[in-house]
């Protein structure tokens, strides 16, 4: 084994030891496993959320997009700012509602709002579907790092297989405690690595100014919007879609519930935008790669290939190790979310008599199942990591119209309206995905699906208002009379 491979293997072992160590003395039922018995302090919750920002998506995906598409990568800087502005208004009412009703997961919000487990199940299903491409991006990144560290001796398929097993095993062993400790390790290493790489790679090609001047000279138009159909309308629709969808991810939505008070969100909205600035260094590294390793077929490799060219072997190992952690922490969080969603919001409503042991077993099986499905998607895909994430956003943002209306115009949305809106939006997204249309009429296709979804939700709700009123009256009448209808 060479030095980088040893360092990367060591990183994985340390993550596993942290996971097992934090698990010792902990009772392991599903609530422990997924939300850690809600015993986390504010610092841990913050680290978990900060961990969301530094994923493989930013590390390899951001640099890869700067390398491959240029100017459009600027959307990644903008959408975080939009999401945090929105969070100031959106998160406190979600938190208040969840607290009143003791909600645990994202589908619970819909189940409670509309008194419908059917809608909750639909939301859980769409959430899991959306998590698969996101997870694929983490697995692809992890596989690339393993492959790079072996200097090509481990094939791509084997590298991704190793990534899959590491992720699923890690989740099975650790649960959220392991994730939180690894997140601490990860945030420190990745911050250092990103800043060092983002300064040294451009320095290698003459400094920032000279680097950008030379790229702009070689490829006119590359450093602005407009290339490959990604013009200003694409930028606006993509930033809107991803900004609105930021907190619609099942794991992000659920994490909102864990905050201590609603003011936390408003305060976070003031300084979290600045976190985005770290991304600049990632972009600098990606742009430097254009001059250091031109002509790569797979843009996801840009940062790793440039690092391999410029840095000594041990440094390649450290950078790869940090990259492994940025894939493992969010990847395990997503796998765990998928397992919990299926077990709690799909399996449990269908089998009321299930014991908590049975639910936990289901969650663990689902983790491996989702990991295996993601693996199959990953092996023959050359998709850009950013494109994968955007695909996931197309799905989760379809929840936004219902959530928005529930919070601010409750009477404008009914159960059939919410169901039809989400279904139509998801069908549009699936159609665009299968026909390979990520951009339609200059706009992000997910944004078009979102607009249709919003319209359908409003129209169907208007048509079914009296039906909904009768249904709600029946339900509240039933519970007031002291008995309950078997729900959905």
């Amino acid at each position, binding site marked *: 084994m060479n030095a980088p491979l040893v360092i990367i293997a060591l990183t994985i072992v340390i993550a596993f030891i942290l996971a097992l160590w934090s698990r010792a003395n902990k009772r392991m039922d599903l609530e422990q496993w997924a939300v850690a018995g809600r015993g986390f302090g504010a610092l841990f919750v913050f680290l978990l959320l900060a961990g969301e920002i530094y994923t493989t998506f930013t590390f390899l995906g951001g640099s890869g997009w700067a390398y491959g598409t240029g100017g459009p990568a600027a959307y990644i800087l903008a959408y975080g700012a939009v999401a945090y*502005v929105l969070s100031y208004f959106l998160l406190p009412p979600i938190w208040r509602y969840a607290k009143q009703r003791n909600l645990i997961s994202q589908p619970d919000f819909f189940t409670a709002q509309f008194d419908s487990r059917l809608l909750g199940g639909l939301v859980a299903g769409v959430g899991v579907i959306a998590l698969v491409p996101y997870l694929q991006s983490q697995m692809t990144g992890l596989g690339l790092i393993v492959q790079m560290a072996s200097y090509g001796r481990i094939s791509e398929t084997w590298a991704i297989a190793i990534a899959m097993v590491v992720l699923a095993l890690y989740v099975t062993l650790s649960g959220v405690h392991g994730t939180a400790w690894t997140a601490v390790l990860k945030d420190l290493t990745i911050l250092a690595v990103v800043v060092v790489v983002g300064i040294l790679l451009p320095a290698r090609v003459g400094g920032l100014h000279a680097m950008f001047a030379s790229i702009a000279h070689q490829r006119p138009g590359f*450093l602005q919007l407009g290339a490959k159909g990604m013009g200003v309308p694409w930028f606006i629709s993509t930033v809107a879609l991803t900004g609105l969808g930021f907190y619609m991810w099942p794991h992000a939505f659920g994490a909102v519930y864990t905050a201590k008070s609603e003011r936390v969100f408003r305060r976070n909205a003031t300084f979290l935008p600045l976190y985005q600035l770290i991304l600049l260094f990632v972009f600098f590294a990606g742009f430097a790669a254009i001059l250091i390793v031109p002509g790569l077929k797979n843009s996801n490799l840009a940062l790793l290939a440039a690092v391999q060219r410029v840095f000594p072997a041990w440094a390649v190992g450290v950078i790869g190790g940090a990259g492994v952690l940025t894939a493992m922490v969010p990847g395990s969080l997503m796998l765990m979310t998928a397992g919990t969603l299926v077990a709690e919001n799909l399996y449990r409503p269908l089998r009321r008599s299930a014991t908590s042991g049975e639910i936990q077993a289901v969650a663990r099986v689902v983790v491996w199942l989702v990991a295996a499905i993601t693996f199959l998607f990953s092996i023959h895909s050359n998709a850009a990591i950013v494109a994968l994430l955007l695909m996931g956003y197309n799905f989760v943002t379809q929840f936004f119209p219902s959530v928005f209306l529930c919070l601010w115009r409750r009477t404008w949305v009914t159960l059939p309206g919410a169901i039809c809106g989400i279904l139509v939006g998801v069908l549009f997204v699936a159609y665009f995905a299968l026909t390979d249309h990520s951009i339609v009429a200059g706009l992000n296709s997910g944004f078009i699906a979102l607009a249709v979804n919003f319209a359908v939700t409003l129209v169907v709700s208007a048509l079914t208002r009296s039906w909904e009123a009768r249904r709600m009256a029946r339900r509240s009448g039933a519970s007031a009379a002291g008995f309950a209808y078997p729900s959905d």
Partner: protein
Amino acid sequence: MSVRALALIPILFIFVGVAFANRAYPIVLGMPFLFFYMVVCIVLTSVVMAVVYALDPANRREE
């Protein structure tokens, strides 16, 4: 008009301003203009949201 309306400022800067900032030159602080402009938007977002946070009556209540 509520102080919360100030939050529209960064939103307008990002969604409308981008049409005017979509250029590679001049290179400012070592960055192509589009990227420099996004950095300005991010800093502006943080400053405006800090002002909103400080003035919003919702944050003055005891918790």
